[in-house]
C-alpha cells in the first residue's frame, strides 16, 4: 500500500479565489478575530497567519475580510475526492484539510509513480487549489509528512523513520496527551518520543501518543473511513469579486459544471434535471431549473445550455456565489461502439439540439407534432414532445397548413369569398359531432380555388351557415 496525502493549508482562502485574482489583500478570520489564512497580496504587506485583525489593520488599511466557511471547505474537499476517483478507489477525507488516496494499486496502470502523481497534481491545479503532498506506506505517515515536509516520498517503512523522526511532537493531535505537553517536558521530536521506553510513556501520558506512533510506523493497523459519493451532486462556488453579467460568472459556472460532470462520470450517470442558483450580495437567491431530454455529462454542452438560458433571463446584479445541484440522474451505460461511428454521436446530438433550442426560446416554443385519432380537423393533430412516435391512422386528403383559428370568410349568395369569389373543386366532406367533450362540430369541408389559383380548405358551419378558411394547400 502506498498512500498519497494531499493537504491544503490555504484551503480557507482558496475556496474564495475563483475567477479573477484580486489586487487587494484578503484575509480569512475565525470567530476570535485571528487571521487563519491570507492571500499573496496580504503576505506581501507582512500579514501572517495567527495575527489579530487589529494588527493586520496596522499593516494595511484596505484589507478585505471574509469569515471562514467550514461547510464550503468540506464541500471543496469532497470535490477533490470525487475528482480523484479516476486514479484510485480508496479515498478518504481527513479533516480539517487533507485528502488521502491509496495509489499503490494504480501505479501499474499509470506506468510510474511519478507519472501518476503528476497527473493528480494537475487535477488539483485545475480545481484552483494548492496542495502539499507526501507519499508514505502508512496513511498517518503521509498525513504528517504532507503537513510538515511537503514533497516527501517514502516507499518503505524503513525510509519512513528518517523523515518522520525529525517532525515535532506537536503533530500528535488531541487525545489525552497533547503534543505540546510532550514538547514542554523536552520531548521535541517524534524520534525522541520513539526512543523513550514505552511503559514510561504510557505511565505518564496514556496510550494515545504511542498508538498514533504505531499507526504512523505501520505497527498497528490503521483502517481509513472510505469516502463515498453523495446521493446527489451539490456544490457552491464563491466569486472573488461580485459579478453582474453572465460573462463574468461563466468561468465559475464552467468550473462547477466540470465538477458535476466528474461526479457523474464516477457514478456512471448522466444528469437529466439540475438546478442552478445564483446568490447576490443581499443573499437573494435566483433558481434556474433545467430539464434535459437526454441524460448528459458533457461539460461543454451543459455550459452552453446554462449560458443560453441565463442570456435569456434577467439575472441579479452583484452576484456573490453560484450553486449547482443535480436533481435527477440516470445511469448511462457506455454504449457498444457502432460499426458506423457517426450513428451513436447523432443520437446524443439529437437530444442536445432540442435542449439548446429550448434553453434559448423557452420550452413551449419547441415541439413536435403527431397525428391523433379524431375526425375533427383541429383535434386530429397535437403538439408533443419532440421525437414522440406517431400513431398509424388512415387519413384523408388534408392541406399542409392548418390555421390555428379558422378565419371567417365573407360570402355572397352562399358563395364564399377570399380575394374574390372562391371556386369549389372538391367536396363536400362532412365532419361532425364531438358531443363527448363539448366541442361539437357540424361542418361541410370543401377544397376551393381562389381567383389567383391558390388552393384552400374551407368549411361551411352547417348550424350557422357561415364560411370559414381552415387550411392552405401550400
Amino acid at each position, binding site marked *: 500500500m502506498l498512500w498519497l496525502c494531499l493537504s491544503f493549508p490555504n484551503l480557507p482562502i482558496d475556496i474564495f479565489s475563483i475567477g479573477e485574482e484580486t489586487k487587494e489583500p484578503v484575509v480569512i478570520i475565525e470567530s476570535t478575530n485571528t487571521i487563519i489564512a491570507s492571500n499573496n497580496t496580504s503576505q506581501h504587506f507582512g500579514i501572517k497567519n495567527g495575527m489579530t485583525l487589529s494588527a493586520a489593520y496596522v499593516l494595511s488599511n484596505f484589507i478585505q475580510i471574509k469569515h471562514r466557511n467550514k461547510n464550503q471547505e468540506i464541500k471543496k474537499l469532497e470535490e477533490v475526492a470525487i475528482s480523484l476517483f479516476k486514479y484510485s478507489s480508496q479515498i478518504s477525507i481527513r479533516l480539517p484539510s487533507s485528502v488521502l488516496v491509496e495509489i499503490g494499486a494504480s501505479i501499474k496502470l499509470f506506468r510510474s509513480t511519478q507519472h501518476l502523481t503528476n497527473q493528480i497534481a494537475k487535477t488539483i491545479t485545475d480545481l484552483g487549489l494548492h496542495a502539499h503532498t507526501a507519499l508514505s506506506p502508512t496513511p498517518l505517515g503521509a498525513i504528517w509528512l504532507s503537513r510538515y515536509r511537503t514533497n516527501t516520498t517514502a516507499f518503505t517503512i524503513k525510509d519512513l523513520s528518517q523523515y518522520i523522526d525529525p517532525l515535532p511532537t506537536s503533530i500528535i493531535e488531541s487525545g489525552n496527551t497533547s503534543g505540546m505537553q510532550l514538547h514542554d517536558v523536552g520531548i521535541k521530536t517524534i524520534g525522541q518520543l520513539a526512543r523513550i521506553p514505552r511503559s514510561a510513556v504510557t505511565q505518564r501520558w496514556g496510550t494515545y501518543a504511542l498508538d498514533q506512533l504505531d499507526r504512523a510506523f505501520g505497527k498497528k493497523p490503521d483502517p481509513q473511513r472510505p469516502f463515498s459519493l453523495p446521493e446527489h451532486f451539490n456544490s457552491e462556488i464563491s466569486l472573488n469579486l461580485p459579478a453582474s453579467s453572465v460573462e463574468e460568472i461563466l468561468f465559475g459556472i464552467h468550473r462547477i459544471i466540470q465538477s458535476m460532470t466528474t461526479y457523474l462520470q464516477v457514478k456512471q450517470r448522466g444528469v437529466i434535471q439540475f438546478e442552478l442558483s445564483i446568490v447576490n450580495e443581499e443573499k437573494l437567491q435566483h433558481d434556474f431549473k433545467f430539464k434535459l431530454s437526454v441524460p448528459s455529462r458533457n461539460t461543454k454542452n451543459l455550459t452552453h445550455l446554462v449560458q443560453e438560458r441565463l442570456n435569456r433571463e434577467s439575472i441579479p446584479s452583484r452576484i456573490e456565489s453560484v450553486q449547482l445541484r443535480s436533481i435527477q440522474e440516470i445511469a448511462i451505460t457506455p454504449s457498444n461502439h457502432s460499426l458506423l461511428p457517426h450513428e451513436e454521436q447523432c443520437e446524443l446530438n439529437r437530444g*442536445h439540439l432540442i435542449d439548446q433550442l429550448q434553453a434559448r*426560446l423557452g420550452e413551449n416554443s419547441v415541439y413536435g407534432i403527431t397525428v391523433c385519432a379524431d375526425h375533427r380537423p383541429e383535434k386530429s393533430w*397535437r403538439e408533443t414532445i419532440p421525437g414522440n412516435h*406517431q400513431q398509424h391512422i388512415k387519413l384523408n386528403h388534408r392541406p399542409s397548413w392548418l390555421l*390555428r383559428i379558422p378565419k371567417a370568410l365573407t360570402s355572397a349568395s352562399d358563395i364564399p369569398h377570399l380575394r374574390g369569389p372562391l371556386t369549389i373543386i372538391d367536396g363536400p366532406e362532412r365532419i361532425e359531432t364531438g358531443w363527448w367533450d363539448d366541442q361539437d362540430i357540424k361542418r361541410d369541408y370543401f377544397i376551393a380555388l381562389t381567383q*389567383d389559383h391558390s388552393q384552400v380548405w374551407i368549411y361551411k358551419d352547417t348550424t350557422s351557415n357561415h364560411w370559414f378558411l381552415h387550411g392552405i394547400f401550400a
Partner: protein
Amino acid sequence: MASPLLQSILPTHIWKGKEHKLNPLGYVPSGFTNIDESIHGWPLGTLMEIVPHQIGIGEFSILIPALARLSQDSRWILLVCPPHIPYAPFLSRMGVDTSKVIITHAQNINDAGWCMEQGLRSNSCSAVIGWIPQITEKMMRRLQLALEAKKVLGAFFTKPMTTYKNNPTPWRIIVRQADNETLIDIPKRRGGSPISGISISNLLHQTCCGFA
C-alpha cells in the same frame, strides 16, 4: 461547346458555360419526375431560397416527398417559424415520419436565424427549413457557412418582393402559378445555368397518389 483548341488551353478547373457540374454532396430525390430529370433533385449542403409568388399553390408541398424520404433517417426535420400549423395528418399521409419533425417559434428574426443555424450545425438534422421573410444577407451568409459540407437539406422561404443587393444564397427557386399549373423557375443555381418553367402540374394529385 467551345472549340477543341480552346478546350485544350483552358485550365481544367474553369467552369465552362453549359457544362453541368454535379453537387458534390449529392441530391435528395424531389419526388417529381420533371424536377429530378432537369436538376437531379434537391441539392444537399447548399442553401436554397424558395420564393413563392403566392400562398397556397403548393409551395411547401414541393419539398414534402423529399422530407418524407429524409424522415426515414434518424435525424430531425427542423421547421423554423412556419406561418401556420404544419398539419400532422397531411405530413403523415405524405409519408413524413412526424416523430422526426420539430417545430420552433422564435420571437424575433435573430432568434429564428439562430435556430436555423443551430440546426444546420448540430449534425442531428436532415433538413432545416425556415420561414423568415425579413432574412438579412448576413444571416444567409451565416446559414450557408453552417450548411457547407453537410449532408443536410437547407431552405428558407421569402417573399417575392424582397430583393437583396448581394444575395449569397447559391440556389433561388421561384414557385409560380400559370394557367392552372404550378411552375418552378430556377434563376440561380450553383454549377448550372438558369432553368425556367419546370412544370409540376397536378402537384397535389401527384403527391396524393404517389404516397397514399
